[in-house]
């Protein structure tokens, strides 16, 4: 292929990519620039370029506001999502592994029920969960949001596929002959082979809990238990009465997405390859 033809062939795709990059990244750039300005400059200067760089002053103001309630929300979010995703991934991996590697009575039934669970939207469960938790007087607690967040049927489905694909039966037989117990074999051998897959399940689960808005909205009334999404949402509804909150919402939004963006960057080599496997197999 000659050079001009190649350039011509590449021009259109590259243009499409460039336009899409602008579309996806401009809002985030705007958020970063906006978070670095003081209240006057936020409305009076170019929204896409810096004025005085006050980002750290702003962060200080945010963290000091109402005795640092924002920091508390961030910690809550990390506990709700990180904790639920970590524990939930282990549980899903165990169940999926058993479905892939053992034959037992009710196996197909269990798998079909769990798979139907994938099609039941999590938001449909929020209201009945609230009613159930209020029966035992446990609404407005950490556990009311944390416990339901542990269950991830899609994780079981993925774990079964990954276990079938990446843990050979011969290896398990060999471990048995060496006298390793089933549980030990799972944690020492199988989880290592499934590790990239487990990171993918973890990420899926993490984002699902992170995005689940209805459950905390219905469950929680004490703002000290809020995840950061719910906290920023309540601030945003009050912007008309308390204008100073607008700046805090902007800075809070920036801080709240930073951990996940960093996690995506660090775990890139896993999600890059793992994400599609569930769809391909």
């Amino acid at each position, binding site marked *: 292929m000659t050079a001009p033809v190649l350039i011509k062939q590449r021009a259109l795709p590259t243009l499409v990519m460039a336009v*899409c990059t602008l579309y996806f990244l401009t809002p985030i750039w705007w958020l970063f620039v906006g978070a670095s300005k003081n209240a006057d400059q936020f409305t009076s200067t170019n929204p896409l370029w810096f004025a005085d760089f006050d980002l750290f002053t702003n962060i200080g103001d945010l963290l000091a506001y109402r005795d640092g309630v924002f920091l508390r929300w961030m910690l809550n979010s990390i506990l709700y999502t990180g904790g639920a995703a970590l524990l939930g991934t282990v549980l899903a991996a165990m169940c999926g592994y058993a479905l892939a590697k053992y034959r037992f009575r009710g196996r197909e039934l269990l798998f079909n029920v769990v798979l*139907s669970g994938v099609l039941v*939207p999590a938001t449909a469960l929020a209201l009945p*969960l609230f009613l159930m938790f209020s029966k035992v007087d446990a609404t407005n607690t950490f556990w009311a949001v944390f416990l339901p967040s542990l269950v991830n049927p899609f994780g079981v489905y993925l774990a079964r596929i990954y276990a079938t694909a990446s843990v050979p039966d011969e290896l398990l037989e060999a471990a048995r002959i060496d006298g390793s117990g089933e549980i030990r074999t799972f944690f020492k051998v199988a989880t290592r082979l499934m590790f990239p897959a487990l990171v993918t399940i973890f990420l899926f689960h993490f984002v699902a809990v992170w995005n689940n*808005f209805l459950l905390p909205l219905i469950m929680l009334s004490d703002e000290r238990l809020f995840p950061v999404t719910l906290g920023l949402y309540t601030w945003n509804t009050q912007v008309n009465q308390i204008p100073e909150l607008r700046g805090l919402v902007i800075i809070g939004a920036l801080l709240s997405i930073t951990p996940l963006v960093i996690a995506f960057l660090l775990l890139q080599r896993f999600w890059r390859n793992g994400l599609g496997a569930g769809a391909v197999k």
Partner: protein
Amino acid sequence: MTQTLTAAPEKPAPVPASTGRAVRHGRAVPFFVVPFGILFVLFYLLPIGYAIVQSLYTVERTGTFGPAREVFGGLTQYERVFQDGAFWTSIGRVLVFGVVQVPVMLGLALLLALLLDSGLVKGRRFFRLAFFVPYAVPGVIAAIMWGFLYSPNLSPLKPVTSAIDFLSADLVLWAMANVVTWVYVGYNMLIIYSALLAIPAEVYEAARLDGAGPWRIAWSIKIPLVMPAIVLTTVFSIIGTLQLLAEPQVFRSFSSAVSSTYTPNLTVYSTSSIPNFNLAAAFSVVLALTTFVLSFVFLRITQRRGDA
């Protein structure tokens, strides 16, 4: 690659000679299955059952201020659900939303995945990450950000937003469609892209020898081979669309056009804060069933086509 995503799982390979396995390792199975099983029953199956039970009850009062008591009402709540015009309007609204937004989003995701895979674009790592970053933004935060971006006086697109009111009754649905698209294109692109990466190179070589160009290869080979991935992303998008909540709930502070019954889930939420839990439970059940049936029917249709 030969299997497709189906509601029914693939049949397991027949187990060779060691049929004694189930007995030999019987005790390990509960250890693996029970922890998830208990939580699944408690926080998935039980709430579904409980919602159905609650939806069959109704609250009766003697006089206006008399004590309230729950009595069995049969399908009374469902009658009210089916007579509730606002609820069905909201279902229609999210369906219109889905019919437009899902194809646009998945079409864009497919196009970007194909371009990434075509080798025509340099800097693949950068683009892949750039498109995926919005997925890190939770729906609520994304809606807040775009709410500001749409607003006539704060937006960096001031000339556009002062000429067109994106938060007006006519456009606010599509303003939200843009938020959802912005968040999820990268995620869907990545699922399709990883499916493309899994196609063995020999497949293309054969096609190239037959004289197929890049467009022809994309259309006749790549797209059919990544169909299972597209089906999966479509099902998830259908589920997500019917469950729209965070975006409209946030947009209520930006636009008066978004009512408290704008989407089905908003109706569930506002009915439960009245509070009328029995009616809200009936709304939940009807919404969950609608979602389940729609995704199931979609899976069946695509499967049948695959079998033909």
